């Protein structure tokens, strides 16, 4: 508990210091609870998520950093490796390939990389995965773009 708090505090200071270094990620710690974080990440360019801003919720366990944070999308996203209802993310570093060498910031970077490089063979969203697996890239992109517009972009007017 003490160790995880100390580690998170170091990450917090690092995030404050490096704020401008990674303009695609805005990581914010809850005012009253250092185990709760949220992040706003920009959809990577040349993907159907371009132009969208996606919110992530982090719940950090007491055994952090020996155990991974739980991360999910709060913003609806159509992506093979993100559960369409719960926002849960299928990413090895959040499961068995986790190690303390990762930080909350680098987890955000890994999630942005996952958005650009979906892995349809281990889908949490089968509809999305099946589109890619059947080679229907256009179908996948138009669905993903539609949800980006609906859920991840500011409403016009």
């Amino acid at each position: 508990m003490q160790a995880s708090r100390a580690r998170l505090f170091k990450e917090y200071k690092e995030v404050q210091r490096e704020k401008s270094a990674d303009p695609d990620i805005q990581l914010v710690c809850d005012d009253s609870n250092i185990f709760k974080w949220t992040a706003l990440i920009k959809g990577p360019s040349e993907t159907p998520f371009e132009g969208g801003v996606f919110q992530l919720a982090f719940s950090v366990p007491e055994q952090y950093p020996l155990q991974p944070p739980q991360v999910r999308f709060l913003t609806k996203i159509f992506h093979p490796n993100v559960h369409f209802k719960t926002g849960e993310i299928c990413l090895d570093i959040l499961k068995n390939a986790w190690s303390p060498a990762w930080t909350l910031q680098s987890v955000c970077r890994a999630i942005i990389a996952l958005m650009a490089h979906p892995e349809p063979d281990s889908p949490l969203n089968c509809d999305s995965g099946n589109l890619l697996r059947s080679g229907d890239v256009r179908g996948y992109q138009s669905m993903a773009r539609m949800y980006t517009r609906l859920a991840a972009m500011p409403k016009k007017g």
Partner: protein
Amino acid sequence: MQNKQAVLEDGQAAHVTDTHDWDNFVDDDIMQQKSAIHAEEAKKIPFLGDKEPISSLAAEYQSGSPILLEKIKVLDEQYAAIRRTRGDGNCFFRGFMFSYLEHILVSQDQAEVDRIQANIEKSRNALQSLGYADLTFEDFFALFIEQLEGVVQGKEGSISHEELVSRCRDPSVSDYVVMFFRFVTSAEIQKRSVFFEPFIMGLTNTTVEQFCKSSVEPMGEESDHVQITALSDALGVPIRVVYLDRSSCDNGGVSVNHHDFMPTASDLPNASVSAEKNNPFITLLYRPGHYDILYPK
């Protein structure tokens, strides 16, 4: 036209799975179930057991292979005791941790403490130059150095043998020290990637960096000769591994093989053995998939 068709078909197919219960069965449940199984296992054997006679091994194989029972008899002649570690994938590192710290506690070898501290600093530099942020590994380094300084007697923070055993059983110390070794091992492999690459390719067909990310740094990933070689080289500590398996000798007799991992002296002038006649002070018993600690007679 064809695209539209595909969307429709997949949409229908997926609709069936949508209403299924699997929808609510998420990875978090699987993770929780896994940690529950681990907690159950944890009750059976601590991270580190008590010293037991070698004969306690024989009890496990009473109805098993006669070759193993013969080999255990040979072991019994050469070794005084065994101390078991939990089979959670961290057993090699955990065995090394206790064996090393116990050796320092008993020998009070200050020269060895100074020597290993110099190697630890080299590992720290290696991680930094590989691009690891200090905050990701410094806590693990600090905790190991604290244990190392603790086993040196006659100081304010000195600890007893009993306290060392209890710390090695306490996850907040034990897991952090295991993680320290994982960082040191990973740094050594990446620093000498040209040397390690062929071994890693033979094992997993991945890049050196990928191997470190997936098979060295995560807790619970088992160690093989690549990790043992790297840790022994990085810290300059020789390790003897005694093999207990079903292989038998050509001449019909039974002997127990061992392999000594000796730090490569050319690369590491700081290695704790200058002459090869020196026996490693760390001896681990390997049974396929698991390492325990052995005490020579």
